[in-house]
Every structure is written in structure tokens, then in C-alpha cells.
């Protein structure tokens, strides 16, 4: 039975309760909500500084289930994967193999300051689920550039007329090269696909990596209600393809319509300054990466 044939099981219970400290229109609480619906309350979240860790604690703790708070620890910045490995080892030593130990970290904490830690945890195949919620910049501190920021984007440290002129770091390729048991990309626009991948991660063991695109209202500059739509456009334009890597096999889980990237770009203020030629350049890059992914799907990653 392949993983797609396993029925999706998730609870009707809610684990994130308003009021939380996330911005109106933020995609991260949606991701947390669906993630926890699959894992349930037997979970410890290790959260480095970022959008998530203060926002689930202020203005008051919001990760709550039936009056009990979900376990979370606010770790130092580059240390979520490290702490998670330590917590997991301690739980195993104490006879608890059931609790899912989860690092819940942003793109800065994953692709930049914590990359060595993520790579090392993957290499040691630590028994944790590592979630990278990717809003493509240091959004918690006010939209400063990270290595996850895409080409052509303006940020508060790439002010116009000098937008970012470097490509986004391809974290999935880096992670897959570690030959870990399970890795996948997730979108808040596709709940079934999202939760199925969390379920697959939960069923697997060893180091599991989930990469979630979480559009950011303030940093990406779009109307409050468009977060999910932009997530969907990212998938449909092949900017953020949905796939999973399990064993040697890479599978596309949502076949994109192949809409022009312009549809994704023109709803975001951070791209507003781009010329037609620059948008075409992005389209070329997206097509190139999609073809590379097709190659991997065909021949496997290893």
C-alpha cells in the first residue's frame, strides 16, 4: 500500500485558540492548526525565535487543547534541531517513544543561522519532525532578507533600487541530499495534501523534514484575505511545487496547472517594481527548476 492509499486521519479537535499573536492574514497559524490536527497533543514543539514562538505565547498562550497547553520550548535561534534531538534522546531514555518531538522553525532559523544544525540532525537521522515555515525573509523582525528570499524581491535590507539579486536557496535539494527517510513540501492552500504529508511524516521515523510556504501579509504586501490564494498560486504557477521524497522516490502530489508566474507575482507588493523582462526571467528560472524536478521524479534522487 503506498502512502497515498492510507486513509487520512485527523481530529476535529482544535489545538490553537484565539487570540493569538500572529498578524491578521498570516498563514502560520493555519499551518499549526492542520499540523496539530494530525499529530494530536502528544507533541513537544521546539521553537526558535521567529514569527511563531512569541505569537503562540502572546498576548496569551494560544496552543491549548481542552484547557491544557501544548508543550513548547522557546530555544536559542540556531538551535531548534539541536534541542529537538536532545529532548528526543531524553524522552527515549525515559521510556517515552510516543511523543512527537517537533522543531518548528522559520526560514531564517533553518536556511541561515540553523543550517548546520539542521544538516547535522539530518545526517545523524535524529528521530524528530523538522518543520520549516517559510515566509521568505526575517518577517518577525520586519522583513529583512534571508537566503530564502527569492530573486527580484524588495525587502527592508534590499531597498529599491537594489532588490535581491540572488536566487532563493534550494533547501529541499540540500535536505534530500542527506538521504533522510521523509521530506515534503506543504501548502496551506491544500489541506488534504498538507495533512496527508504530516501523517506520512508521523508514520515514518528518523529525521523528517516538512517545508511549508507561509505567505506573509506584511512582508509580501498583499491584501489580508489573499494568503491562501497566494499559496495556491505558488503551487499552480510551479513556483512552489508540492512533492514528497520518500526513500529513493520523489512524487509530485499536486499536478500544477502551469499558470504564468505573473499571476503569482502581480498580487504581491514586494514584486511591484519588476519590469516585464524581469518577470520573464523569473518565469525562465521557475521552468528550469520544474524541469529539474521532473528529472528527479523520473530517475529518483539517489
Amino acid at each position: 500500500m503506498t502512502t497515498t492509499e492510507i486513509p487520512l486521519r485527523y481530529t476535529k479537535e482544535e489545538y490553537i485558540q484565539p487570540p493569538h499573536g500572529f498578524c491578521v492574514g498570516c498563514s502560520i497559524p493555519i499551518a499549526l492548526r492542520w499540523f496539530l490536527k494530525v499529530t494530536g497533543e502528544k507533541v513537544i514543539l521546539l521553537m526558535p525565535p521567529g514569527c511563531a514562538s512569541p505569537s503562540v505565547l502572546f498576548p496569551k498562550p494560544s496552543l491549548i487543547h481542552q484547557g491544557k497547553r501544548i508543550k513548547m520550548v522557546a530555544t536559542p535561534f540556531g538551535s531548534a534541531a539541536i534541542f529537538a534531538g536532545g529532548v528526543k534522546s531524553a524522552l527515549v531514555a525515559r521510556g517515552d517513544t510516543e511523543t512527537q518531538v517537533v522543531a518548528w522553525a522559520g526560514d531564517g532559523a533553518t536556511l541561515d543561522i540553523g543550517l548546520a544544525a539542521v544538516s547535522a540532525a539530518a545526517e545523524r537521522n535524529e528521530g524528530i519532525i523538522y518543520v520549516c515555515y517559510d515566509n521568505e525573509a526575517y518577517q518577525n523582525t520586519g522583513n529583512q532578507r534571508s537566503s530564502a528570499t527569492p530573486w527580484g524581491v524588495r525587502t527592508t535590507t534590499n531597498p529599491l533600487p537594489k532588490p535581491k539579486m540572488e536566487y532563493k536557496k534550494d533547501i529541499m535539494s540540500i535536505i534530500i541530499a542527506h538521504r533522510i527517510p521523509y521530506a515534503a513540501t506543504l501548502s496551506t492552500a491544500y489541506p488534504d495534501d498538507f495533512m496527508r504529508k504530516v501523517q506520512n511524516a508521523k508514520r515514518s521515523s528518523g529525521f523528517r523534514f516538512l517545508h511549508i510556504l507561509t505567505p506573509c501579509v506584511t512582508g509580501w504586501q498583499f491584501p489580508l484575505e489573499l494568503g491562501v490564494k497566494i499559496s495556491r498560486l505558488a503551487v499552480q504557477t510551479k513556483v512552489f511545487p508540492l512533492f514528497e521524497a520518500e526513500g529513493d522516490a520523489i512524487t509530485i502530489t499536486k499536478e500544477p496547472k502551469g499558470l504564468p508566474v505573473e499571476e503569482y507575482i502581480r498580487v504581491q507588493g514586494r514584486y511591484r517594481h519588476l519590469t516585464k523582462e524581469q518577470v520573464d526571467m523569473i518565469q525562465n528560472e521557475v521552468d528550469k527548476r520544474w524541469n529539474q524536478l521532473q528529472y528527479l521524479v523520473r530517475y529518483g534522487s539517489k
Partner: protein
Amino acid sequence: MIKVITGNEAAAYGALLSRPAVVCAYPITPQSRIPEQISEFHAQGLLKGKFINVESEMAALGYVTGASVGGVRVFTATSSQGLAWMHEGLHWAAGARLPIVMANVNRPFGAPWNLTCDQIDSLAQRDTGWMQFYCESNQEILDTVIQAYRIAEQVSLPAMVCLDGVYLSYLSESVDIPDQTKVDEYLPPYDPQFEITGGTWKLLDVHPPIKGGYDLFSPAGFMGDRYELHKLESRCVETAVEADKEFYELFGRSYPPVEEYKCDDADLVVVCSGSAVGTCRQVINSLRDKGWKVGLVKMKMFRPFPKELVRKALSGRKKVAVIERDLSPGQCGIFFQEIKWALNINHKFTPIYGFVSGLGGADITATLVEKAILYAMEKELPEQEVIWLGLEEKKISDDYDRNTIKIY
């Protein structure tokens, strides 16, 4: 069982006998033998816990911090640059009140690179909230690791066991390795009952709650946490004294936080820490034979600073001479600074002579210690904050140099 082992191996034996569930380390000269030895214990099945090679010192401390959050006994070891790489995590572990024990092999920071001995690495971490113990011999290293768990778990605070690079880490001495059963009697299993709830988690027995969340919008709360941390000082010292007493009863060896050696009628007391204490003992013995009223105070505990014990040992002496292997550049030696503060606050003035010596592994020889004592005897008051002891003789180059007190 008596074995001839290095200081690094003694630290590893101390850890083994304390039965940690998780041990992590990252190699660094002159500490590398500690993780090697522990991995051998692990491979032989002697160490029942988990041993993990991690990717950096930040990870070594972070991993054991995570494991400590999970409620098990942990051990790690580092040195110098590695300790600096852990700096953020040191603050975190102490703020979270986790009873981690770590061996630190004292070595200076580069540049320029130096792989030998200097206590600046751990002294520079004095404001992190960790307890610090400095060892004189390999036997003391082994015994102190065991004692450190006892103290750390009782006060819920991390502890650093410091041993001099090269002088202790690499040199072999005969060490009595205690029986596991006796150590188990001294150090009961660590099994705290944890209750983790968003951001703050509690040890359900005698310990105070451990903090792992935020105190962002409640400065009063944060200040209260720091107050708790600060007021632990006297409790830490009392616990250390008590832990040492019980250790003596079981094992017949004692290492008080502040040790007074031949101090009863001493007019001049030398203060020292680490491996150079042995040399100082020898000098004190020979000067005593000549009828000089000199004594020695060994600073075993540096954090929290055992100020009452320091005052008891040194207050009212005619002269105090601090000989130390560290320097806060542009100011003075760190032990000197702290002892001077402890003695001269609300107390009658005690002349204190601060000798900086043995930096970067230079020898603190018996001759140098004697010269320091002679200087302090001769001068009514110290002429400067720093008296350079054992500086390599150079041609005087300028007025600053001419005016600096140096004993070659």
C-alpha cells in the same frame, strides 16, 4: 582502584561514574581525550547512556540542554574557543535552571592561537550564571565531576568543572577510581518529575520551575527570575560545603569551596587556583620551614563567588597576594578584582597584590611564587593593579613599559 590517568581521563571517569543518560561532545585541543574516553566507555558497554558526536560546541551544549529539558542527567566537555561558541547556550541553560555538568579544559582564546593553559576562557563566562569549580589535581577532577552533579541537581543550576589545559589535561597522576556502588550511594539517580506546559515547565519535586519560554512583556517577571538566580549564591555555597562534607565521609577526600592551607597565624596569604596551587603549596611549605608566617588559600569555587568564605579566610590579614592565570586586558586579573571587591567592601582595608602569571601556558614556577611573596613582603602597598610575574624579559621600549611593574 588506583589508575594512572590524565586529567581528561579523570573527567571522563567522573562522568561515567555519575551515570549520565546523554553525553555529547565536540573535539577541541586539549579536551579531545574526554569524548574519546567516554566513547570508549560507551563502546565497551560501560556507559549505559547515549553518546553522540555532534557538529559543534553550540550543538554539544544545545543537545544536552534539550536532554536536560527532557529530564535526564547529561554531560559534556569543551575548552576555550568551544566554550565561547557555547556562550549563548550557557546563559540559556542557567536561565532555564538546568542541572547540566560540563568539564572545561582551560585554554586561552586566539588570536594568537595557543593550545596550552590559561583560565580566561571560563572566567570570561563568569556572568552566565553557571557554577564554576577549579581543580588542582586529576583526583580532584574526577571527584569534582561527581560532586558537581550532586550540587547542580540540588540547587537546579548548571556547573562547570574547570581543569587546566596541558598541566592537568595531558599529565598523568595516580587516581583512585571509586566504586560505582559508593558513588551511587553519594549520587542518587536523577529522575525529576516534569510537567511541561507552554513555555514553562516544572520539576514536580523540590526544584523550582524551570523557565523556557518568554518573559517579554513582563519585565518585573524577568527581574524576579534574575533575583531568584542571584539569591541562589549562598545556597550554592552551602550546598557545595555540605556536598563536600558528605563526600569526605564516604571517600575520605575533601575539596572545600575555599581551602585554607597553613593560614592559622599567617600574615601573608597567597591566593591561587587550578594546577598552580600545587606549586604554591610547596613554596609555602619551604618558607614555613624557614619560619615565615605565610599561608595559602585555594579558590576552588569561583561562581557563585563564595564571598563570605573568602572574607573569613582573608579579612584582617596583613597582606594578600593573588597569583592567577588570566587577565582582563586593560584592567587586572579577574580573581584579584573579585577578591579585592569581597574584602574591601564594608571591611577594613586589606592590601592585595595582584600577580598575573602563567598566561598561555607559561610556567608558574616555585621561584616565581617566591619572588611574588618577597615583593609583597617588601612593598608596604601594591604599586599597581597588575604585577607581571614571569614576563619574558624584553628591552624597555617606552615610558609605559618602564613604569609597569614586572618580575622576571
